[in-house]
C-alpha cells in the first residue's frame, strides 16, 4: 500500500529509483555523444558547404538508393519466407531459424570476406558468374548484397513473430467462411502482422544504412558507385574531422527522419485495430 508522501512513495518502489536512475544514465550516455556531434558540427563555418558538396550528396544518394532496393528485396522475399517459418513446425524450419540469425552474430567484415569467397571472381559460384560476364564485387550490386545480408535478419525475425502472434485461428475461421487463402492472407493475416513488420523494416533499414565492414570488404570504396555514407565518413575522417562531422550529421538526420516517418505510418494506419 503506497504511502501518501512522495519520499516514502519513491522509497517503496525500488523499480522507480533504479528505473529512473537507469533512464538518466542511459539518456546521458547516448544523448551526450549525439549532442556533442551536433554542437561541434554547428560550430563549423563551412558546415553548409560540406553538407552540399558533391561527395556528400553522392554518398547520400547512393546510401538511400541502395538501402531502398535492399529493403524492397528483403520485404518481397522475406515476407513469404517469414510466414512459412511462422506456420511450420518441422525440423527444417528450426534449422532455418538459426540460419536467419547467423548474419546477426557474424562480424560484418567476416560477412564481407565470406561473400567474396562465394561471389568473388574466384569464388565458389562467382567464377561461374564471371564466365558469363556477371561480376559482382566492386559494383553497386555488391553494396545491395552486403546490405541484404546483414539487415535481413531484423525484418525476417520480426515478421515471423508478427505472423506467429496472429495465429492460425483467424485464418481457419476465414477459410470456413469461404474466403480464399490468398484473400485471407492479404485482408486478415498481413494487416494484423503489419506493426511487427514495420518495426522489423525500420530496424533492417537502419542497419542497412549503417552497413560498413561488409561493404568495404566486398564492394570496395569508390565514389558514386560503392561509397555509401558510412564509407564516405571513414574516408573523410582520414583527411579531416570537419568533413566527417558534416557527413555524420547528415546520416544522423536522414536516419532519424526515416525512423520517425516509419513510426508515424505504423501508428496512423494501425491505431485502433486490436
Amino acid at each position, binding site marked *: 500500500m503506497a504511502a501518501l508522501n512522495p519520499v516514502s512513495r519513491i522509497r517503496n518502489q525500488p523499480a522507480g529509483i533504479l528505473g529512473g536512475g537507469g533512464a538518466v544514465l542511459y539518456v546521458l550516455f547516448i544523448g551526450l*555523444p549525439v549532442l*556533442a556531434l551536433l554542437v561541434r558540427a554547428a560550430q563549423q563555418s563551412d558546415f553548409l558547404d560540406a553538407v552540399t558538396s558533391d561527395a556528400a550528396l553522392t554518398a547520400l544518394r547512393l546510401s538511400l538508393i541502395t538501402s531502398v532496393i535492399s529493403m524492397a528485396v528483403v520485404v518481397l522475399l522475406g515476407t513469404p519466407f517469414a510466414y512459412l517459418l511462422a506456420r511450420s513446425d518441422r525440423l527444417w524450419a528450426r534449422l532455418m531459424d538459426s540460419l536467419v540469425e547467423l548474419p546477426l552474430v557474424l562480424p560484418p567484415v567476416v560477412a564481407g570476406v565470406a561473400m567474396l569467397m562465394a561471389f568473388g571472381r574466384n569464388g565458389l559460384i562467382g567464377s561461374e558468374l564471371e564466365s558469363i560476364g556477371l561480376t559482382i564485387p566492386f559494383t553497386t550490386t555488391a553494396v545491395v548484397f552486403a546490405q541484404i545480408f546483414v539487415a535481413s535478419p531484423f525484418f525476417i525475425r520480426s515478421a515471423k513473430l508478427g505472423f506467429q502472434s496472429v495465429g492460425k485461428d483467424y485464418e481457419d475461421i476465414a477459410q470456413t467462411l469461404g474466403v480464399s487463402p490468398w484473400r485471407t492472407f492479404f485482408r486478415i493475416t498481413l494487416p494484423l502482422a503489419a506493426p511487427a513488420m514495420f518495426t522489423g523494416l525500420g530496424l533492417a533499414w537502419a542497419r542497412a544504412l549503417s552497413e560498413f565492414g561488409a561493404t568495404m570488404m566486398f564492394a*570496395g570504396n569508390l565514389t558514386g558507385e560503392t561509397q555509401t555514407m558510412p564509407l564516405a565518413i571513414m574516408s573523410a575522417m582520414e*583527411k579531416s574531422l570537419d568533413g566527417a562531422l558534416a557527413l*555524420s550529421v547528415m546520416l544522423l538526420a536522414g536516419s532519424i527522419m526515416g525512423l520517425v516517418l516509419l513510426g508515424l505510418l505504423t501508428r496512423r494506419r494501425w491505431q485502433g485495430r486490436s
Partner: protein
Amino acid sequence: MLDSTSRFLLSRQAKIFLLPMFLSIVVCGGDGNSLRVFAASSLTGAFNEIAQAFEAENPGVKVYLDFGGSQRMRSQLEFGARADVFASADAIQMDALVEQGFVAGFPVDFALNALVVLAMGNGPVNEIADLARPGVKVVLANDAVPVGSYSGQVLENLSQDPIYGLGSRFKDDVLANRVSEEPNVDNLFQKVVLGEADAGIVYETDTVKALDAGTMNILFIPIPDAANVSARYPIAVLEEAPEPELAQQFVQFVLSDIGQTLLNRYGFSSP
C-alpha cells in the same frame, strides 16, 4: 585523460579509432616496462623483428605494436590515443603531428621505400601500360593514405615524360580503371592476391613480404627509377609518451646498425 574531442562517437567507425586508444590507456601504464609504438602497416614485418630484438636487448621491456594506415594512426593520436613512438610512411602525416605539438623534438628519417606495380598472375596486366587499358580493374589507396598519394605522384611522373611512351592521359586512364580506394596498403595487396582486382600499386617492400609468405600467382612489375618516388619514412618520440626515455632508446635502436639491417632485410633502404 581523454579530452572532449576524443569523446566523439561516430557509430561503427568509432571502434576503429577507439579500440587501440582504450588499449593504449589500459596497457601503457607508464611502469617503465612497456612501450607502445604506432607504425605504418608497411612496416609490419620489419618492426615485429625489431621489437623482438629490442626486447631481447632490454629484458623486462615489452613492446606493443599497432599497425595501420599512417593517416589512421595520425588521426588516432590526434584524438588522444597514447603512444610512445610513431613511425609514418610519409612526412605529411608526421608533419601534421609536429604542427599540432604532438611530437617531442624532431622526426628522423629512418627508412626509404619505393613503389612497384602488383598484378594478378596470368591476368590482363603484364606491363605498366596495361594499367590504362579499358576494362582492367585497378585498386589504389585513397590519396589521404601515404601509398595513395605516392601512387598519384608516380602516375603523374609516368604521364609527364614522353620517354615512357605512356601518353599524357595515362594517369587519367588508370584512375578511370580504379574500382576501389582502400584505406591501407595491406587491404590493397589482399584484393589483388585474392584475384578480385587485376592490379594495384604497392610498396617494393611488399615484394619481400610476398616472397616470405610464398604467395603464388602474382606478378611484380618494376617502375622506372626516374618515375618512382623515394618514400621517406620518419620516426619520432611523441610529446605525451608515457615512457619518453624508453621511446628514445627505441628510436635509436631503429636507427642503429641492427635496426637498419633488419629493415634492409625487409626491402627498405637506409636514408
